[in-house]
């Protein structure tokens, strides 16, 4: 694997580009990680919730009197107690096609009037122990009047459907359109010689970070100061939302800390009601309050992902060139708008409809709908997996229908290579401008790894021995490095999406780095230290990465959207540049030269063309012991930077799945999985490969195993690990991975981000492979609903 930076120069031989072992591992492997539930504060109390067992019910009465009299109970609050408190906000405003703002019904901390999904919180019980809290919660008596409910996004928009919010007609939060005018797309579609149509469901998924959400909030009345320990992906964002939008607490009076977080995958981005409610409660009772979700609560309350109902049509000319794409999607938002629920099916989904193809006319229409279900928001990939699934399923199906090889069909339609420097970025029909790409090459590499010709021979032979072999392709693109603030602001984001990074050089030349990005498994303590050590020419042992504490870190927007290295890493690089610039001034003074004549390389400041040099550590010491020092220069060597990216980054790649389908049972076995990804430059190949593995496992999980199942009564019928089929170790083959490097042209590291690609590219590859297997057996099947259980595949073969 070659590593180049953005302007094409080779890496320095420092830690960048090397598979350095992770520095954070020791505390986890020894059992000394510091997760939120590990923290117990003096005077600790524990919270349990009374939650709705009905999806939609009027609350007639809540009787807490018996519960309040029970042993150990400290306090009980109901919806009536927090009627005057704001609900949790949505961070992205999407407008209706007619320009009106989306509907934003209140998402209260506790419901007082009616429940809108199973698990809606009715009361919080705080006690001396968690057992006493559970006991008392059981004793709270709630009288309900059950109401009819609706769980399906399309049905919810139909006349007569029960309303989730009385003031939201037809349960429509907003409707939205992007791309070319529909008339132009219709005309192009009419000119097509073949149109492939696919109606499908991208099923609802449950993120299932293995660490349940946990919050521990405390209040210091002497200093009027709150501290919230929380399992979040973005502590500063939580502080801002909770202080400014929910509780009206001055931001400087709240410290939010998230030390080790046990996986997020998007589900820990959002500001949840429990965070604000516990913070409200701690002041009421004057003691710390802790809540740890039970797994059932994780199933019922962590924001879910996906849940789209879509009809997509792709038109081709007689040469197999795409002439038009037309899409209609109903996106299920659940009962309430989660923090980024509105932008996932729109700006993270519609904007990816170009894919890797030169499609000249595109129109996507999205209706976002409230239902009596758990809120839906970003889950690994967030909108981009849905877009990729749509496009890549269409491509393989069109190939079958037109009897063109699926790889060949892609080659005919790929956007030609462009590096974003000598060739401009590629302007899509759906708002984005891709930064750099070389799409043919990843597919060629994938076909080579697969041994495509041999595979097709083996496929013909396998049909004779009771098994159907199939191969599925997915050539994906994603928009990462989220995001240029002005761009997202113009699209409705209510926040900037820059990042903060501070380099504090200590007097001895050791470096403490403060980053607004947050690691919950990604290995920032290693990757960021590699960048700093490389750029400053010092040992990684001399670099410490600090994250996850609003009191220590200047600001931060957190980690999601594969943004940590592209945005957070760049903020750090900008601060390093400032350190070096000031260091040159100090070195120039000490070496009696002009700052312009000082070079910095390999940890030494050197006068150009001479052997006069001074080490980084000596310059640092001088900055803090400024006895012999430039006259007009401040002491110290400590810089921070905010970095607002110029564009999104656009990783891409080719995923190929090979499956074997049992003709008798429909059982699918994943035999091979090939991932060729282009993330731009790579800082730590080992960590990046780990990200690919994890993402692919989740994407394959969607294709073959996972899916939230609601019945008509709004009950989530598989809300446990006994019922929701999470992938286990024996569900996967060894993954075959490779990377290609097309540097990002607009950030100094040339990086694009790698966190979500596995989950974005893999799902359609697996489903396409099963469909291909069935076609090879003479079953001309268009679609099988995910997850592809043996029953569903068997039925598809029988019908």
């Amino acid at each position, binding site marked *: 694997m070659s590593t180049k930076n953005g302007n094409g120069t080779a890496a320095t031989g420092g830690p960048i580009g090397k598979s350095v072992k992770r520095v954070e591992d020791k505390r986890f492997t020894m059992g000394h990680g510091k997760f939120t539930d590990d923290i117990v504060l003096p005077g600790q109390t524990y919270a349990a919730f009374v939650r709705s067992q009905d999806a939609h019910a009027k609350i007639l009465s809540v009787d807490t009197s018996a519960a309040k009299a029970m042993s150990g109970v400290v306090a009980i609050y109901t919806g009536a107690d927090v009627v005057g408190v704001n609900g949790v906000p949505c961070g992205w405003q999407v407008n209706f096609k007619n320009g009106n703002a989306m509907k934003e019904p209140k998402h209260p901390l506790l419901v007082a009037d009616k429940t809108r999904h199973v698990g809606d919180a009715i009361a919080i019980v705080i006690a001396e122990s968690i057992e006493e809290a559970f006991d008392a919660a059981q004793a709270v008596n709630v009288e309900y009047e059950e109401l009819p409910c609706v769980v399906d996004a399309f049905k919810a928009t139909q006349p007569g459907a029960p309303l989730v919010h009385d003031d939201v007609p037809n349960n429509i939060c907003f409707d939205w359109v992007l791309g070319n005018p529909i008339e132009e797309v219709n005309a192009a579609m009419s000119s097509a010689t073949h149109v492939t149509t696919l109606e499908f469901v991208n099923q609802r998924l449950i993120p299932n970070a*293995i660490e349940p959400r946990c919050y521990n909030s405390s209040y210091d009345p002497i200093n009027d100061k709150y501290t919230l320990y929380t399992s979040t992906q973005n502590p500063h964002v939580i502080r801002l939302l909770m202080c400014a939008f929910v509780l009206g607490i001055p931001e400087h009076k709240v410290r939010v800390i998230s030390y080790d977080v046990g996986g997020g995958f998007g589900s820990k981005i959002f500001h949840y009601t429990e965070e604000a409610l516990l913070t409200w409660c701690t002041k009421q009772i004057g003691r710390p309050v802790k809540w740890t979700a039970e797994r059932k609560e994780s199933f019922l309350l962590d924001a879910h992902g996906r849940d789209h109902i879509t009809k997509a049509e792709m038109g081709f000319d007689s040469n197999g060139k795409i002439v038009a794409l037309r899409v209609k999607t109903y996106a299920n938002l659940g009962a309430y708008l989660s923090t980024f629920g509105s932008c996932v099916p729109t700006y993270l989904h519609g904007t990816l409809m170009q894919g890797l193809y030169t499609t000249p006319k595109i129109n996507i229409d999205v209706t976002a709908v409230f239902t009596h279900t758990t809120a839906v928001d970003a889950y690994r990939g967030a909108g981009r997996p849905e877009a990729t699934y749509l496009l890549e399923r269409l491509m393989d199906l069109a190939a079958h229908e037109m009897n063109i090889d699926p790889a060949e069909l892609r080659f005919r339609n790929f956007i030609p290579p462009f590096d974003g420097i000598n060739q401009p970025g590629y302007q899509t029909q759906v708002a984005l401008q891709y930064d750099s790409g070389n799409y043919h090459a990843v597919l060629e590499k994938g076909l080579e790894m697969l041994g495509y010709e041999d595979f097709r021979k083996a496929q013909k032979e396998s049909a004779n021995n009771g098994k159907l072999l199939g191969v599925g392709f997915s050539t994906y693109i994603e928009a990462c490095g989220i995001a240029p603030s002005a761009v997202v602001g113009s699209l409705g984001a209510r926040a900037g999406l820059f990042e903060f990074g501070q380099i504090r050089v200590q007097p001895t030349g050791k470096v403490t780095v403060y980053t607004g990005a947050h690691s919950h498994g990604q290995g920032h303590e290693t990757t960021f230290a590699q960048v700093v050590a490389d750029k400053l020419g010092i040992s990684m042992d001399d670099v410490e990465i600090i994250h996850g504490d609003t009191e220590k870190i200047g600001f931060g927007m957190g980690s999601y959207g594969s943004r940590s290295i592209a945005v957070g890493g760049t903020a750090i690089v900008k601060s390093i540049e400032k350190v070096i610039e000031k260091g040159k001034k100090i070195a120039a003074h000490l070496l009696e030269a002009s700052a312009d004549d000082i070079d910095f390389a390999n940890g030494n400041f050197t006068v150009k063309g001479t052997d006069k040099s001074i080490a980084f550590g000596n310059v640092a010491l001088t900055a803090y012991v400024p006895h012999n020092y430039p006259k007009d220069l401040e002491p110290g060597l400590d810089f921070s930077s905010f970095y607002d990216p110029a564009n999104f980054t656009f990783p891409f790649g080719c995923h190929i799945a090979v499956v074997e389908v049992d003709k008798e049972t429909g059982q699918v076995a994943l035999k091979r999985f090939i991932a060729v990804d282009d993330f731009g430059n790579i800082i730590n190949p080992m960590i990046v490969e780990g990200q690919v593995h994890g993402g692919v496992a989740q994407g394959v999980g969607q294709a073959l195993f996972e899916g939230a199942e609601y019945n008509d009564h709004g009950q989530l019928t598989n809300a446990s690990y006994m019922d929701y089929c999470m992938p286990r170790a024996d569900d996967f083959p060894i993954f075959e991975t490779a990377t290609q490097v097309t540097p990002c042209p607009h950030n100094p590291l040339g990086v694009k981000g790698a966190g979500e690609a596995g989950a974005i590219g893999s799902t359609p590859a697996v489903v396409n492979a099963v469909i291909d297997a069935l076609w090879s057996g003479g079953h001309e099947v268009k679609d099988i609903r995910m997850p592809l259980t043996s029953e569903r595949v068997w039925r598809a073969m029988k019908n």
Partner: protein
Amino acid sequence: MSIKITVTVNGVKHTDKVEPRLLLVHYLRDVLRLTGTHVGCDTSGCGACTILVNGKATKSCTMLAVQADKSKITTIEGLATNGELHPLQDAFNQCHGLQCGFCTPGIIMTASDLLKNNKKPSEEEIRVALEGNFCRCTGYENIVKSIQYAADKMSAPRARKTKKEATV
């Protein structure tokens, strides 16, 4: 009503009065403050709470503290000896067998039981042995490699252990 139990955890004897309904995992976490053992679910599904009870991998959320009376328990905190990492702990670092680290203690304890009974497990045997443990981050592949790596180290002659470790 409380019941007196005596357990030896990581070589240290503890006697405590506990409620009969107290789960072993909560005894370890809340009473002994050994927080390396995690709770990821309440239904024995995820395996994050796996410890060794009398040498056998056991999900400590499935067992009451009173059932552990008179037993010998090893948790993740007790796996290293005299500050030296157990080969599994080192292997997970060498092979990138963890990301967020939440499931890791349970998986390492499960693996330690496996390697006691099967010195040289195949890839398939390792994957089957892990069927009681969820990892949502890694896709399991590097966990499998970590366990293979540790098995190789543990079965190697003593002298070889001091050699510089090859990159995997």
